[in-house]
């Protein structure tokens, strides 16, 4: 029975199915083959040899990184950077969206939006370049320091500054663009709710707290879940561009470490084991966050 319906579907919609062939090939080759390629985390892999490795070695590479102090060091760095991003970068677009929502002059609102979206469209390489220009010894920030009589600081060479630099550049790049979904959600809030709140004598603050914030909560929760899922892969490209051996103590994260171990030093299986660990944790975090939010606030990704 089932086979016949498939046959009927194929006969009727073969043209539609034919359109799927190439896109599906893309997903199989460039998305699912690499997933399967993770078996090299359990097998010895010889560069240039079999794509899926040579011999089984079980959990050898997992035990290796479990006992690798550098791994735990970069793991901690990743957690700190991820937590700072969630704590400091994530809420910022909400605040800016609420502020923009208070602007009554149309063109002014548009102007601020247009300007604040701009950094989002730049290549991460350009962003890194701008950061380096600003923080160079002859850069604008050090010029400011000298103007108030302080000594110039080689910011990008000091581990103590890396997190601040990372977080603030992240804010600069994402805060404006991040407001889009919140602003869209804000327009869907029913004006009658504000009306009712005003009649009940609610102040502007109380209206924000009791009407606006609940109105954008589904958006907040969805974005939070997605952010939690990328917790461990924080800012790989940006860190790779901005760090250097001097700032490794605070800047080196799991993804940059496995890049160096795998691609630069050629320990592919070892790096794949770390990468698999990272991906599985990421997936677990999304699923857990999604489950928790479904149970508590009723918002869910699917």
């Amino acid at each position, binding site marked *: 029975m089932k086979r016949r319906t498939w046959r009927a579907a194929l006969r009727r919609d073969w043209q539609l199915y034919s359109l799927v062939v190439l896109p599906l090939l893309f997903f199989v080759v460039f998305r699912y083959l690499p997933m399967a390629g993770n078996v090299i985390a359990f097998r010895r892999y010889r560069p240039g040899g079999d794509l899926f490795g040579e011999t089984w070695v079980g959990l050898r590479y997992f035990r290796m990184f479990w006992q690798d102090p550098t791994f735990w060091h970069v793991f901690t760095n990743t957690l700190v950077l991820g937590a700072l991003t969630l704590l400091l970068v994530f809420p910022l677009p909400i605040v800016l969206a609420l502020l923009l929502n208070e602007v009554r002059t149309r063109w002014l609102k548009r102007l601020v939006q247009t300007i604040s979206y701009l950094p989002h469209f730049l*290549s991460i390489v350009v962003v890194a370049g701008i950061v380096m220009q600003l923080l160079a010894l002859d850069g604008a920030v050090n010029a400011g320091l000298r103007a108030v009589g302080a000594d110039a600081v080689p910011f990008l060479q000091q581990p103590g500054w890396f997190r601040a630099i990372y977080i603030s550049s992240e804010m600069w790049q994402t805060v404006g663009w991040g407001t*889009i979904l919140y602003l869209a959600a804000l327009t869907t809030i029913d004006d009658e709710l504000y009306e009712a709140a005003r009649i009940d004598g609610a102040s502007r603050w109380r209206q924000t707290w009791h009407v606006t914030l609940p109105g954008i909560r589904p958006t907040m929760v969805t974005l939070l879940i997605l952010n939690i899922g990328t917790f461990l892969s924080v800012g790989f490209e940006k860190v790779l561009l901005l760090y250097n051996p001097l700032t490794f103590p605070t800047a080196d994260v799991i993804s940059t470490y496995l890049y160096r171990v795998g691609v630069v030093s050629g320990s592919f299986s070892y790096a794949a084991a770390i990468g698999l660990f990272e991906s599985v944790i990421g997936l677990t975090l999304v699923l857990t966050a999604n489950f928790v939010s479904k149970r508590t606030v009723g918002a869910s990704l699917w």
Partner: protein
Amino acid sequence: MKRAVLGLILTGVVVLTLYPFLNVVARSFSEEQAIQAGKVNLLPRGFNTTTYEVVMSDPVFWTNYRNTVVYTVVATAISIVLTTCFAYVLSKRHLKGRAPLVGIAVFTMFFNGGLIPNYVLVSGLGLRNTIWAVVLPNAISVFNLLVMKAFFEGLPTELEEAAAVDGLGTYGILWRIVLPLSKAVIATMVLFYAVFFWNSWFPAFLYLDDADLFPVTIYLRNLIAGSTGGSDISTPSDTALQIAANIQAVTIVLTALPIMLGYPFIQRYFVSGITLGAVKG
């Protein structure tokens, strides 16, 4: 009072967003001595275009710039074809096997093979040092796919049904009925992909060894990579470093230029695309 505070904060946002750009642009037009002395702020000091001439007279810069254009055009074309075909099929609710196909695509948003298996695969396929290493691994963005699918789902079905009654096949319907109705969403997708590929640097960094193949983002990355090196920062008066700072600023400006020029026009397409994807996706 409240208005004033609000105005102050938003002015702050605008100034903080624009200042880094303006500073880099000012540096790109300034003479070395002024930059060295840390005098360049919002306006160029010792205005000159010599640095632009220096960068633009480097043949490697132009080769790399041309590569970026070629990669962007080829990659965007492939992406648009694949994304449109897949999104159109996924928008057909009656299609058997539609749900698993959506699942196959969406799952990759939350779980991916990771850097190393990708690297091993692309190398194993012999794509290193070819344009395909830059173009193919990111050919379909699932987010863009969902945006397009949502758009196609919103099209009225009557037109397609009428065309089918007139004897038009799926290909004919897609080509002659659906695509002409979808110009706006296709334009949006072209922009999404083009900006993505223009800005992309990491696949090129991973898979290309030959400087003649680099996109301009790698040209820029190699210029700025030297300046985080650590060892060469102890002497603020080092002339070579200052010239590099000059040239860095110019290269930053030239790399970002097409995006900045197009930005006022493309921005609203992005906003509508994002909102469509989020609401329906």
